[in-house]
C-alpha cells in the first residue's frame, strides 16, 4: 500500500496535536493529584483562625468510646485514695513494655536506674530525688500513675505523650527498679549466689 502524502501529513499533524493535548492534560491531572483537596495530619488550613486543620475537642464534650468511667484505670485512685496495684495483671510483657517506655520518657531526667542523674539533669535541669529512698519506696503505684498523668512540682505531666495503659506499665517498672536495688540474696538462684559473693569481695 502506498501512502497518500497529503493524507499522511494531515494524520501526522493530528497525531502531534493529540499527543500535545494528552501531555498537557495529563500534566494538569498530575498537578491536581499532587495536591488534593483534603487535609493530612499537621497540614495548615486557612479556614480556622489558628491556622491548623486539626481541631481541638470542644469544651465539655466526649468523643465516642472516650468516656472515662473506670476510676482506678484512669486516675490511679479508688474513692480518692491512691491504689497500690495495677488495674490489670502484671506479666513479663507488661514489664518489658514499661522498661521501653521508661527509657524513652523518664530516663532523660531520672536516668535508666532511677538515680535521678539523667542527661537533661546534667545539662542543668532540677535534679529529681532517686527512686530508692524509703519515702519513694513506700509510695503507692497509683501515685506513680498520678505523677505521670498530672506532673509533680516542677516535673511536667506526660498525659499527652503516654497512653494510659503505658503509664501503668511504667509505674510497674518503677517498682521493679526499686526492687532491683534492694533484692535480698535469697532471691538469687542458688547457682549464682557464689558468683555474687565473689564479685562483692
Amino acid at each position, binding site marked *: 500500500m502506498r501512502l497518500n502524502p497529503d493524507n499522511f501529513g494531515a494524520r501526522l499533524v493530528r497525531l502531534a496535536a493529540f499527543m500535545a493535548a494528552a501531555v498537557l492534560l495529563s500534566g494538569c491531572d498530575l498537578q491536581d493529584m499532587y495536591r488534593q483537596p483534603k487535609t493530612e495530619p499537621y497540614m495548615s488550613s486557612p479556614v480556622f483562625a489558628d*491556622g491548623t486543620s486539626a481541631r481541638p475537642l470542644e469544651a465539655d464534650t466526649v468523643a465516642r468510646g472516650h468516656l472515662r468511667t473506670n476510676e482506678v484505670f484512669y486516675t490511679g485512685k479508688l474513692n480518692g485514695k491512691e491504689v497500690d496495684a495495677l488495674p490489670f495483671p502484671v506479666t513479663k510483657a507488661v514489664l518489658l513494655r514499661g522498661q521501653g517506655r521508661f527509657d524513652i520518657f523518664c530516663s*532523660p531526667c531520672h536516668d535508666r536506674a532511677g538515680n535521678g542523674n539523667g542527661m537533661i539533669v546534667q545539662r*542543668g535541669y532540677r535534679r529529681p530525688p532517686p527512686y530508692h529512698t524509703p519515702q519513694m519506696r513506700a509510695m503507692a503505684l497509683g501515685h506513680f500513675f498520678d505523677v505521670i498523668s498530672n506532673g509533680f512540682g516542677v516535673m511536667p505531666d506526660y498525659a499527652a505523650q503516654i497512653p494510659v495503659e503505658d503509664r501503668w506499665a511504667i509505674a510497674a517498672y518503677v517498682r521493679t527498679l526499686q526492687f532491683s536495688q534492694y533484692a535480698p540474696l535469697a532471691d538469687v538462684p542458688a547457682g549464682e549466689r557464689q558468683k555474687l559473693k565473689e564479685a562483692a569481695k
Partner: protein
Amino acid sequence: MAQLFHPSANAIAKVTIFGGAFIVAGLVWAAAELYRSPYVTRAGDPISQPVPFSHKHHVSDDGIDCRYCHTSVENSSFAGLPPTKTCMNCHSILWLDSPMLEPVRKSFQTGEPIHWTRVNYVPQFVFFNHSIHVNKGVGCTTCHGPVGEMPLTWQAETLHMRWCLGCHEHPEKFVRPVGEVFNPDWKPPADQLDRGRKLVEQNHIQKLNDCYTCHR
C-alpha cells in the same frame, strides 16, 4: 546543471542528523538527572525553621529518643511532630531566657502552634505509612539520613518512586534488627546481605512492588 551540494555535504548532513539525535538524548538525560538531583528534590538542603531546632543537640548530645517527640511513629502512618508543650517539658527550666526559644514560649502562651516547615513529603497520590516500616525493621536513618548529625533538618533521599522500589524489591540490603530501628548511629555491618536475608525470613518481610501498595 551544476551540483548544488558538494558530495561531502552528505557526511555533514549525517553528522548533523546523528549529532542532533545525540544532543536530544543528552538533553533528556540531563533533564532526568536534574529531576533526581538535590537541586530539584531539595535533598541535602537544610530547611530553615521558625525555631532553629537541632536534632544534633537533642538526639546525639542529649540522647533523647525519637519517640519522645515523634510519639505516633510506631502505630500510625504519620510520625507526628511534637506539640509546644513537649518542648516546654524541658525548656520551662532550661535555656529559659534564650531569645532563640522566644517563638516556643510565645506559642505556649497563646496556644497558636509553631508553624514548622515541612522537610519530607511525597505527593498526595502516594500512600505512605511509617508504622509498617518501623515495625518490620526499616530504621529512621535508612530513609532520613544521619538525623543525629543535623543542626537543621534536611531531606536525605529523593523520595522518588524508584528509590522506594529500590528497597521494596531488595529489602535485605537495608533492614536491621527491630531493636535498632531508633538507633541514630546504626551502620550496616559488613555482612549486611546475609543478616538481611535472615531478617527478611524471620520478620516475614514481603516484596511489595505492586502498584496498589503505594497508589490506592
